[in-house]
């Protein structure tokens, strides 16, 4: 194993292309759902700015997260589709798709962990204030 990009070319077969194409479709659908949530969060955040600043910030942050994950998923779906539709670059396209999926999951995991930490912090602050 050299660690350098390979010059070997691998073309996925017809049956594999069908499965990859389906994965592309559902990944794209999940990305679109996330982007719709982002738009709804953006609108909700803007509308609630006057009534509740904290709620608006929460919604806008949520919208930004959904947007980032949605864009990564759409990008991954594009690379999956490229595996099916093009020839000569199947493996680089597949690796790009996997990298984009990694980015989407990474964003989700890191932000869930940050939210949990902030939630625990808020809980303990409220608990300390109550005492």
């Amino acid at each position: 194993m050299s660690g350098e990009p390979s010059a070997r070319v691998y073309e996925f077969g017809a049956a594999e292309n069908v499965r990859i194409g389906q994965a592309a479709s559902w990944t794209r659908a999940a990305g679109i759902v996330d982007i719709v949530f982002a738009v709804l969060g953006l609108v909700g955040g803007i509308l609630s700015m006057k009534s509740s600043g904290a709620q608006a910030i929460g919604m806008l942050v949520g919208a930004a997260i959904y947007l980032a994950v949605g864009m990564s998923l759409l990008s991954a779906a594009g690379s999956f589709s490229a595996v099916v539709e093009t020839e000569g670059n199947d493996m680089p396209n597949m690796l790009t798709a996997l990298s984009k999926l990694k980015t989407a999951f990474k964003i989700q995991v890191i932000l869930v962990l940050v939210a949990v930490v902030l939630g625990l912090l808020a809980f303990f602050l409220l608990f300390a204030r109550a005492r």
Partner: protein
Amino acid sequence: MTDEAMSAPDEYEFEAFEDAVCGETSKWTRLAGIIQFVVGVVLLFAGVFQVLSDFWKGANSLVTAIVALVVGTTLMSCATALKAIVTTEGNDISNLMTAIDAIKKAFRIQVIVVVVSTAVGVVVYLAGVL
């Protein structure tokens, strides 16, 4: 697509830089799966207690819990297949396709649940308005 590629789909062995991408993706996919699974377990317990006091709220939690558990398990199986690309030899393409199928399944469940729950929400809202 060449005939050669079709006749020997499993002979491609991933190299070091390709293994690195699969390994990294496996790690984050597993973490995302574990989080979904933990959320599912928490919602399952919450739903069991809620269903005694407020049936519909509890049922909602239980359905969400089951979806989270299935998606979490699917993502973890995807991560395992991606990891197998790195740790084993001779079945890289087969393992990759298993991972792709798992990804498809996880996103399909999520999208269908969002669409169905949105439709149910709209129906319930309209029923309340009318």
